[in-house]
Structure formats: structure tokens, C-alpha cells
């Protein structure tokens, strides 16, 4: 029972790590990014290429991947999302859905449909024991990364001048613009951060499991559920949402593995029915 809860929290950390970029993009720009999972997969492929190209372990590849992902995110915002967001509620969903299809097909053409994975060496396969529980270093690291990323995003938004500008823009872009905030760079930065966290999450997923050009969809579903359960656009809520998902999955699995993933979806559905999306 305790083991299940602890493991559930760790799994939840991974969900939250994927979800935080989604949550950020929605919270600030009201952008529902359907391509988030595919961008995470792109991050994993980039890490794979960097690791293969320079012979560096995937963690070092981050030095290269994260700035690149940030740049891609900013560019997407300036060229694509910005226009889509002006087109009403539905346009961003459709545009990012299209982007998702484009990314998947480009990846299939460029990298074939073979499942790939990142080699994390001995660290990724090692475990340690705490009070009779065997925990995986990799999953613990994933959870810690999620907490650090969410924590620093929170501090960034709550404590810095940049964060203030972001929050002002999120509340009312017009008013922020009138008060001298340059909205475009702010949004571009936020989109950049969102995609960079997606790439980071993609790398962790690549270390734990495999990815292929089509695995973005499943990643997105869990991330989406974490965001919705935790409250749309709330960062700590996203972490809570992820943990709730992970723990539910583990506890139900104790009873019957068959219903573990189903339970997560039912929970998501329940949350939507009982407490529809908070404005």
C-alpha cells in the first residue's frame, strides 16, 4: 500500500513534468497545444541525435537541446501560435493539431517508425532501497526534476520582473500593452519555456521507455489529464494533478492491473463532470 503510493507519486512527477509546459502555455496564452506531446518526442529525438553525434550522455545533450527547444518554441509562437490565437477559441486547437500531424509525419520520414530509446547507462537501470521499498534512481530523478522545474517556474512567475510582465499579459494583454509591456517577446519566451520543458520531459520518457514518431499522442493525453485535474493553468495544481493520476493508477493496480489506466481516465472524466473547467 505504502509502496504503491510512493511509486504513484514518482510516476505522477513524470506526468507533471510533461504537463507543466502545457499548463504554462494555457495559463499565460490560453493556448491549448495539441502538439505538446509531439514536441516532447522531438526533444527526445534531438537528445538522441546529440548523444549519437557527440557521444555525450543524454543528460549532457540537454545543454544543446534545451536552448534549441526554447528557440523552436519562440519561433512557433511568433510565426504560428500568435496568428492562431487571434483566430478565436478553436483556431489554436486546430493549428496545433495540424502541427502535431506535420511533426509526426516529418519524424517518420526522417527517423523511420522504429521505436527508439535513450541510453542512460547504469544510472538509468539502478535502484536503491529505502525502508524496504525499492525505488528507481531514474524515476526519483524525474520526480525531483519535475519539482525543481515547477518550483523555478513558480518563482520566475511570482518573484521576478519578467514574471510580473507575464502575469500582467496573461490577465489582460491589451492593458499590459498600454502599460508598456512588449507582449510579443513575453509570449515568445513563455512558448519557448513551454517547449523546452516538453523537450526535457521527452528526454526523461526516452530514458524510461521508448518513443517513436507516434508516441506523442499518449504523452499528451496523460499531460492533459494532469493539467485538467490540477486546475487549468495552475502550476502547483499540475504537480498535484500528476501525483493524483500516478497514485490512482498504482492503487487501482493493487486491486486489478486491468483497470489501472482506465481508472485514470475515469477520474479525469469525473473531475470534468463534478467541477467543470475553472475559468
Amino acid at each position, binding site marked *: 500500500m505504502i509502496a504503491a503510493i510512493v511509486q504513484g507519486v514518482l510516476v505522477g512527477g513524470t506526468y507533471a513534468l510533461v504537463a507543466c509546459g502545457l499548463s504554462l502555455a494555457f495559463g499565460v496564452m490560453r493556448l491549448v497545444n495539441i502538439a505538446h506531446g509531439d514536441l516532447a518526442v522531438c526533444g527526445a529525438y534531438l537528445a538522441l541525435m546529440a548523444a549519437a553525434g557527440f557521444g555525450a550522455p543524454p543528460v549532457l545533450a540537454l545543454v544543446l537541446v534545451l536552448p534549441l527547444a526554447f528557440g523552436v518554441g519562440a519561433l512557433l509562437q511568433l510565426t504560428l501560435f500568435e496568428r492562431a490565437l487571434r483566430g478565436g477559441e478553436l483556431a489554436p486547437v486546430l493549428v496545433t493539431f495540424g502541427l502535431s500531424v506535420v511533426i509526426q509525419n516529418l519524424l517518420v520520414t526522417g527517423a523511420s517508425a522504429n521505436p527508439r530509446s535513450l541510453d542512460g547507462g547504469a544510472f538509468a537501470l539502478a535502484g536503491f532501497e529505502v525502508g524496504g521499498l525499492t525505488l528507481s534512481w531514474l524515476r526519483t530523478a524525474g520526480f525531483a526534476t519535475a519539482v525543481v522545474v515547477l518550483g523555478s517556474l513558480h518563482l520566475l512567475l511570482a518573484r521576478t520582473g519578467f514574471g510580473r510582465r507575464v502575469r500582467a499579459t496573461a490577465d489582460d494583454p491589451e492593458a499590459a500593452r498600454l502599460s508598456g509591456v512588449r507582449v510579443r517577446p513575453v509570449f515568445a519566451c513563455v512558448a519557448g519555456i513551454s517547449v523546452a520543458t516538453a523537450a526535457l520531459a521527452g528526454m526523461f520518457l526516452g530514458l524510461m*521507455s521508448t518513443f517513436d514518431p507516434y508516441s506523442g499522442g499518449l504523452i499528451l493525453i496523460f499531460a492533459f489529464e494532469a493539467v485538467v485535474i490540477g486546475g487549468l493553468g495552475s502550476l502547483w495544481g499540475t504537480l498535484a494533478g500528476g501525483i493524483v493520476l500516478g497514485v490512482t493508477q498504482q492503487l487501482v493496480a493493487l486491486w486489478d492491473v486491468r483497470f489501472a489506466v482506465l481508472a485514470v481516465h475515469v477520474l479525469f472524466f469525473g473531475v470534468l463532470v463534478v467541477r467543470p473547467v475553472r475559468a
Partner: protein
Amino acid sequence: MSTYPTSTYPTRRTFLGALGTAAVAGCSSGLRESSGGTGRSLKIGYVSPRTGPLAVFGESDDYVLGRVRAALAKGLSIGGRGYPVEIVVKDTQSSAARAAEVAGELIQRDRVDIVLATSTPDTTNPVSDQCEAARVPCVATVCPWEIWAAGRPAPTYSYLHFIGTEQEVGVFAGLWSKADTNKVVGGLWPNDTDGELYRRFVTAEPGWRVSDPGAYEDGTQDYTSILAAFARDDVEILQAAPIPPDWVTFWRQAAQHGFRPKIVSVAKAMLFPTVAKTLGELAEGLVAPVWWSAAFPYRSSLDGTTAKAFADGYGRPWTPPMGFNHALFEIAVAAFRAAADPKDHAAVAAAIGTLKGEAISGRYDFTAGPSKNVSMAPDLLGQWRRNPAGEYDLVIVDNTLDPAIPLQGEFTPLR
């Protein structure tokens, strides 16, 4: 200001619209032309998943089709009459609904003389059903015959050449009894048709105690509860039938938790060399079914290419479906030759049922299958081993069902 009304300027939208219409018109005229010349040519339709989650099965299609097209470039001479051969290829996008749709297109629009379908029940079953309904001959492969034959009326126009799950479980059990274990088999079986079949047949196999934590969903990210159940039951033999990504997640997590049974036999996921490469040293010693490998001592009946040359020519790690996909064309050609008139659908369909022969994938025999219109392929077992070059090879360790295929090594338990 211009004096022209703005509407006469072609906007981007109308331009693209016009372009689209032109493209559609172009395509459809192309189709008309291609379906016009069916008079004396033999048309083979080929349906496989080339994109989508099952794309790994169709990955080698371009190569396989290239080899077949080269071998059939001169056409076929049947009964003193020459027939050019044309192959029409359709992608199922890994969807059963789409598979049925493209099979319909092949039959109605392309008017093919035979349909070949490959890779997973999602392709073979809907395509076979379409062919039965339209009375067009069909040969399918890479789907356990139990899944293909179950729940369908006795087939007349569609045939299947592949292995069976029950037979495979029997071969696995034979291997398990070679090692000294406590006879506890842990089942990692997902909630899909394959998983259900393995659960049914392994549970029915006498002499083994089964630890079954339940059917998990494909895409599960965490297996700690399953690992805990296996540890509790002291599982020494693992039998799994997961999709590749799930297997990698599970087996890595098993390593993190120190779960290492004596024998690990993995159907489905460990068929592909790419998965072994992904796992790296964790792949060492895993047992997987072998229905085709580059080491098979068989040749193409079209041009005599050996399995080894066929696999080497690919330029990438070979995949098991390659051999069986190639064999489909060999069976189609054999059926055309055996039929009195290769353009007569009923005659060709009846002719497939009389076929007995050898293809690059090994022997096929449609006259004595376990079920109507089924030719059962033998199932061997291999163990993944690291070769001196640091790559992983599937070394054949059990050839009970086809001793003509040489053993390449001795089975060794993981611990």
C-alpha cells in the same frame, strides 16, 4: 485604387482551391488510365501498415516490393501466354477501418486479381473479410492463425500462411522444461487479443504454475505492481507478449527493481532487432520466437535469392515480416500458375488451397492446415546474443518444429 473589382484578382485561397481541383482531376485521370489496361495484365494488391503505430511491420515494404518487382519485371508466362504483372500498394495507416477501405478500393477501382494482406489482425482480418464478400482471392500473413480464423465464417476466397499461438506456447514450454526452475511462470499479458491467447494457452499448458497479475493496458508507464506480484510468487520464468515500447519500459523497470527470472521469453516485442538495439545489454539472453530470420536455409521461388542475400540487401537490420511479406508474392505467383486461368478469381482462390511449396520464408502447405484455408508455418525460438561487433543477433536455439533450419547455439538461462 484599382478600377477593377477586387474579386477578379485571384486570391491565395481561390488559387489554392483551383490548384487542389487540378490535382484531384489529375489524380483521378491517372487512376482511370491505370485501371483501363487490366485486359491481360495480372494485378496484385498489397495491403500493409506503412504509417502509424504498426509502421515497424511495414518498414521494409519498399525494399521487399522492389525485389519482387525486379523479379517479376518480365511478367509471367502461364499456359503459353504472357502476362505483365502490376503491383498496387495500399497503406492501412495502422487502422482496421482504413484497411477495409483500401481493400475495397483495390477490388472495386483497381480491379486486382489477388489481394495480399500483412501484419497484425488489424490488417489481415478486415482485408480478408472484404475479399470474401467480393469473391476475390486473398492471401494474408503475420497474424496468428487462431486470431484470423476465430469469429469468421469458414473462408473460401481468403487464405492465411502463418504461425499459431498455441503451437508457439508449446515450443516455449519445451524450452522452459530444459532449465532447472520452480516451474512458476509469470505472465505479462496485455489487454489485447494476443495477450488473451497467450493467457489462455499458457494457463492450459500442464505442469506450470501461472502467476497472472492481470491484463494491463497498452501504454502503461509503470509496472511496479506487476513486479511486486511476480516477486511475491517467486517467478522464475517470464512469458510476455507486450508491444515494443511497453516491453522496454517494463524490462528497464524490472532491472531497477532487481527482478531477473531464469528464463525470459518475449513474444511480439522482441521480434525486431531495433528493440534489441534499444535495450542494449538488457537484451542479452532474452528468448523470442523466430518465424523468419536471415539464417533460414530457404530461397525465393521467384528468383532464387537466399534468405541471407535478401536480408543483407536491405542495408538495415532485417525484420521478421520481410520474409513472410515476400512469401505472399511467391504464393500469389504459384496460385496464378496453378490456376487454369489466372484471371478467373474462383479458379485462383481454389488453386491456393491446393498449394504446397517452398518460399523464402520456408515451407507452406494449404492442404493440411489446422483450420480451413490455413497453412501453418513452423515456429522456432531464438535467444538474443551480443555479437563481437557489439550488435545483438537472434541466435536460433530451438528448431523442434523445423529441423531443416540449423541450430546456431545452445540455450542458456539468464541465471
